[in-house]
């Protein structure tokens, strides 16, 4: 009898939580799979004519430069390499597979398959970056056209796609800031930048790498810094403000123009970190608030996939006044002919090899082309709709709060706090996340430091349906209930994931940490046999 199965999937008219279990292959490390003599792929052998003419090439190597022992790589047949990495891929929860709203600040959205297929065509994949310009007119046109799109989306005047991802774009803008002040003879005087604690850690770290001292502003009850705090921080030492808006709380700073003015009045520049642009595409622009520079992540906001942490893709933009400092080359057009311009004497030079992650630019371009102006606005509006809907659902969970700006709507994400629940149950945000993994979803606490106690950041982009959001909310509601009714099950989670709780001790102990298999084996040998 098959009828009646479906009704057992519901309780009180609501769909039950999934009886999820992630793949658990208990897969060995690849070195343990080695079978001496096996081959995964055979390199093409040079023809006899080449071998004979070239002779013993290894004898041409200088003394000591011929490798004595072959590298101790594993030896596996092709299908065994494939199987091993397919199993490991199954032990990974991509955004295509889960309701990935728990990776707040990272704008997890659908990366269209068609765009991925297009970048795998030879017309993209098999291009050498140093080919003659007349043979790469197609990709240069894509880069040129996408720059025009970002100019419209931001209101700024020029963009480069050379940075490899968002942080490198921030770094690029930090170098532009440095070059700008140097051009005015103020490089050594202006040695401070200002950022906020709810802006990405890289706003602070990249500026520091570029040589700046970092001043960090903290929020007041509204969730963003008080204007007076900024006024107290600026001086004739201020090189720039690097700021996100909305910040990682999802709260838009309505006085942002005054922030920009204050810094401009002191002679500094203003960089807009647009990692959080998803909810404001077509609503408000960097130029409208007076910013000199901005950046976008092409993964995240513009749909290129995240690739387990890259390759990403980034665009760094600026006003015409700063364009002379952009990295070389820029992409230029002369009639129907596209070319690369290296003759830019004031340029900061290079920040990355070649022209950045060109396939990410292609994916981002295709994504915008699939949406147009109306579609981009729809992206923003639905991202904001989804976020406020989820906020409403979250507010039904006892012990969870959304600090700051009480009662106001948020833009595209919310930084929540489980502090009340933790106080009551001693179950922490991290525990809740690991328990959520038992139901097949990803969850992340927040960037450090935890200014919001026991944080959780949810960013339900336009890619998720109402049903998805309801499911995510139901999972968190259930886990919060468990924290009260059966806290141990939460504290010892995950149970249905690929592995169980990791003992982090060895990871911070130089005697035990092992970043490679060989280091692990060596340290095992050095330590001797385990106690019985």
């Amino acid at each position, binding site marked *: 009898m098959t009828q009646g199965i479906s009704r057992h999937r519901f309780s009180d008219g609501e769909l039950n939580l999934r009886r999820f279990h992630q793949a658990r292959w208990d897969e060995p490390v690849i070195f343990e799979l080695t079978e001496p003599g096996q081959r995964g*792929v055979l390199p093409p052998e040079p023809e006899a004519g080449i071998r004979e003419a070239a002779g013993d090439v290894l004898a041409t190597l200088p003394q000591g430069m011929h490798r004595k022992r072959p590298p101790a790589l594993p030896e596996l047949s092709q299908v065994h390499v494939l199987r091993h990495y397919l199993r490991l891929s199954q032990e990974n929860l991509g955004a295509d597979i889960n309701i990935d709203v728990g990776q707040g600040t990272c704008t997890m959205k659908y990366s269209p398959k068609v765009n991925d297929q297009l970048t795998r065509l030879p017309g993209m994949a098999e291009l050498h970056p140093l080919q003659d310009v007349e043979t790469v007119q197609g990709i240069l046109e894509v880069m040129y056209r996408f720059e025009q799109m970002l100019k419209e989306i931001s209101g700024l005047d020029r963009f480069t796609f050379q940075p490899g991802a968002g942080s490198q774009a921030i770094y690029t803008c930090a170098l532009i800031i440095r070059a700008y002040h140097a051009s005015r003879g103020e490089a050594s005087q202006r040695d401070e930048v200002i950022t906020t604690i709810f802006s990405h850690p890289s706003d602070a770290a990249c500026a520091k790498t570029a040589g700046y001292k970092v001043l960090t502003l903290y929020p007041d009850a509204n969730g963003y810094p008080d204007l007076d705090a900024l006024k107290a921080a600026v001086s004739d030492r201020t090189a720039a403000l690097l700021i996100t808006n909305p910040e990682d709380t999802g709260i838009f700073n309505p006085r942002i123009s005054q922030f920009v003015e204050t810094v401009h009045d002191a002679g500094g520049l203003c960089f807009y970190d647009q990692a959080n642009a998803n909810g404001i595409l077509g609503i408000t622009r960097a130029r409208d608030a007076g910013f000199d520079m901005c950046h976008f992540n092409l993964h995240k906001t513009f749909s290129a996939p995240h690739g387990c942490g890259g390759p990403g893709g980034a665009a760094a933009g600026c006003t015409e006044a700063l364009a002379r400092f952009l990295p070389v080359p820029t992409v230029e057009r002369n009639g129907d002919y596209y070319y690369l311009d290296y003759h830019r004497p004031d340029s900061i030079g290079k920040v990355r090899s070649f022209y950045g992650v060109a396939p990410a630019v292609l994916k981002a371009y295709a994504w915008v082309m699939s949406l147009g102006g109306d579609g981009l606005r729809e992206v923003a509006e639905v991202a904001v709709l989804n976020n406020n809907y989820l906020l409403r659902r979250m507010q039904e969970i006892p012990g969870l709060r959304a600090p700051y700006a009480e009662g106001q709507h948020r833009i595209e994400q919310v930084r929540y706090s489980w502090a009340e629940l933790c106080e009551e149950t001693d179950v922490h945000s991290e525990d809740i996340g690991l328990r959520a993994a038992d139901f097949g979803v990803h969850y992340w606490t927040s960037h450090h430091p935890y200014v919001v106690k026991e944080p959780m950041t949810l960013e339900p982009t336009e890619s998720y349906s109402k049903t998805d959001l309801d499911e995510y909310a139901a999972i968190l509601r259930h886990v919060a209930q468990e924290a009260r009714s059966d806290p141990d099950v939460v504290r010892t989670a995950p149970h249905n994931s690929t592995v169980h709780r*990791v003992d982090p001790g060895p990871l911070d102990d130089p005697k035990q940490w092992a970043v490679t298999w060989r280091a692990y084996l060596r340290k095992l040998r050095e330590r001797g046999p385990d106690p019985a």
Partner: protein
Amino acid sequence: MTKKKPVVYPYIPNSEPGVKQRMLAQIGVPGVEALYASIPEALRLNRRLDLPEALLSECALRKHVEELLSRNATCKERLNFRGAGCYQHYVPAVCDEINGRSEFLTAYAGEPYEDHGRFQTLFEYASMLGELLDMDVVNVPNYDGFQAAGTSIRMASRITGRYEALVSASINPDKLAMIRGYCEPDISLRVLGFDPGEGQLELAELQAALSDKTAAVYFENPSYLGVIQSQAENLAELARRHGAVCIVAVDPTSLGVLTPPVHYGADIVCGDIQSLGMHMQFGGGQAGFIATRDEEKYVMQYPSRLFGIAPTSVLGEYGFGDVAYERTSFAIREEGREWVGTAAALWGITAAVYLALMGPQGMAELGEGIMQRSHYAAMRLGAIRGVRAPAFTSAFFKEFVVNFDGTGKTVSQINAALLGMGIFGGKDITQEFPDLGNSALYCVTEVHSKAELDRLVTAVEEAVQ
């Protein structure tokens, strides 16, 4: 006029008007506009973005992008001899199969539980690259070989507490520019010339430049100009004697046949892994690595993530996590080492697959096969009247300089003629290295057949006439 039907966007489930209305009602607002109340009117765009008309159907979008890409001529259709940091190697099918998997392609920053596969694969990547390099610590990939070099020098400065780096002039000028900008706040660079005949960094030159201020000695082996250093061990020894860190950038595809730099005294080894299974992608396949010995003073200076193996609560189960996370900018913002962020993890995963497929024998055959082809090509090009190849007398691996001074033609003339014959000739380096005269940097790999190399030789013969 009929009212335009609202578009339901396939990528935006809640663009469907009915569900949108239900959600707005549950939030308790009349429209989306109310949710933007915090954004002041003065900052509003209040008009439609002026963008090209949307291509709403996937069919139309695909056609449009395919048409744009068809305006490119690819290295499949043409015969390519450009390298200079981005290399045309064979990409095994399994590499593309794995990096196209949704689970890897679309994951991001999950925990070592639901993203166990990412941690284990990147640990295996570091482990296999560690075998190729014979080193114990390898980072999760950073952006590219440029970044790896810049960071290696800054690491050396932090390790030694010194602020000067000596860099061999046989380096990609773009890379040198990036390193210069990267080191500017703290470290001054001195560029050391190379011997014009051999293309080698000379001992005497290094000896004269070294002092107790030297944080790092950086050279490449093979160098940007293709040359294999014959005195690498002596260079490293000199650096060591002055208390400087010896940094060597290396081409990983050479290490099946060439001695790993740690054997001749390198302290930090860095480079780019694009050649280990990544398509060229107009430069989009680059990813950097940094490797060191497993010493705390080195490990604590990495900005990158380092994935380590650890026990779990179940006996015999492998777990993974971040090693010494507290050193990173993720943990302590500007107090961390440089910065860490999204870089090129998927290419690390792909390189793991590549190295597992190749194995020890594959890497050795690859290295020798490349050398046989590059030597064959250099020999045949060098036999053309007026052409000197290789231009340097030193040993070389897959790249070599070809000098055309004796032909009376410029490289740009020759390359234009080659292009007309369907060939991307070697990279023109006459602007980058004017002292080398009318020269080009040629790259030959395992993808080139004898017939293709012979075709190059015939075409060059024709082009120089």
